[in-house]
């Protein structure tokens, strides 16, 4: 390896990769945490709301809300994986190629 790690750190592609990936990672984590703690706070402080019946059946509104939390974890992971596969991996390959002697 001719180029040192300082050279990689100066690489605009590397800077873009770090900036974009960490901003996406933290944004998605934040969304996930807001959804999760929102759900927990609902359970703690508004159990009556979660216990409301949907229509005439036995299913309460808490069931779709709990399902929403689970599905949102899948959707957010899907967003991250598609971004990582389409954008970040290409950037990483370019950075690695360029730092080869």
């Amino acid at each position: 390896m001719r180029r040192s790690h300082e050279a990689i750190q100066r690489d605009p592609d590397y800077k873009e990769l770090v900036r974009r990936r960490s901003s996406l990672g933290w944004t998605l984590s934040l969304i996930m945490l807001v959804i999760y703690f929102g759900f927990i706070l609902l359970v703690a402080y508004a159990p009556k709301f979660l216990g409301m019946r949907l229509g005439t059946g036995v299913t309460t509104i808490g069931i779709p809300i709990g399902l929403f939390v689970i599905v949102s974890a899948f959707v957010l992971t899907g967003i991250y994986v598609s971004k990582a596969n389409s954008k970040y991996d290409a950037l990483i390959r370019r950075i690695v190629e360029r730092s080869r002697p």
Partner: protein
Amino acid sequence: MKKLSCMLATALFASLPTLALAAGAIDGGTKQAVNWVAIGMFVAFVAFTLGITYWAAKQTASAADFYSAGGGITGFQNGLAIAGDYMSAASFLGISGLVYTSGYDGLIYSVGWLVGWPIVTFLIAEQLRNLGKFTFADVTSFRLGQTEIRILAACGSLVTVAFYLIAQMVGAGKLIQLLFGLDYWMAVVLVGGLMMIYVTFGGMKATTWVQIIKAVLLLMGATFMAGAVLYKYRLQPRSPVRQGDRSASKEGRDHGAAAA
């Protein structure tokens, strides 16, 4: 290494009274008669998975083989293995039991478990892969002081292990005790010994394949059970508890809500 094993021994020793106490806390029923059918099925499954472990151990030559199966696991296989890791006895027995006994509150446990996983993916999974390292401590000690970071990571692991593993061991020990009619301490020693054999000798390849098998078995079992319950209650998922007497619909609904 010596320090680490010393710490491990201390943690194990410190957890012994908790193990015993926790066992007393969930003492359910009397000791069962020795159940040879259950023991036979268990032994067959253990022999099968130990065979896989032996096969994988023969192919493990380097640290890369041990920690990441030499990169020879496809995305789908790894997905199944992670699913197997995720769907432990907790989701199959524990969560269903919790939902049965405490209703909707039981759902919180399954949700909280799941939500941690995407965050791990978003924040550290890719860094691990790009550095070509295998553990969290490897990554952080890449830039920070080796010794301090490794001690910190070891403490974190031991605290987690102390709380998590004790619950797992108590659960597994109780299950084996109930199924086999063994003494509780024998069940715990048996389960703990098997766990150590799987991971120490097999490494990641064996663990991955054992998890894949577990995931497939659990998915099939859970799907079968859900289908069987729905079939029994005429494919009407609304009120499985009191489907029979429709005249007492209001009362039936209340009971259904309490159980659901």
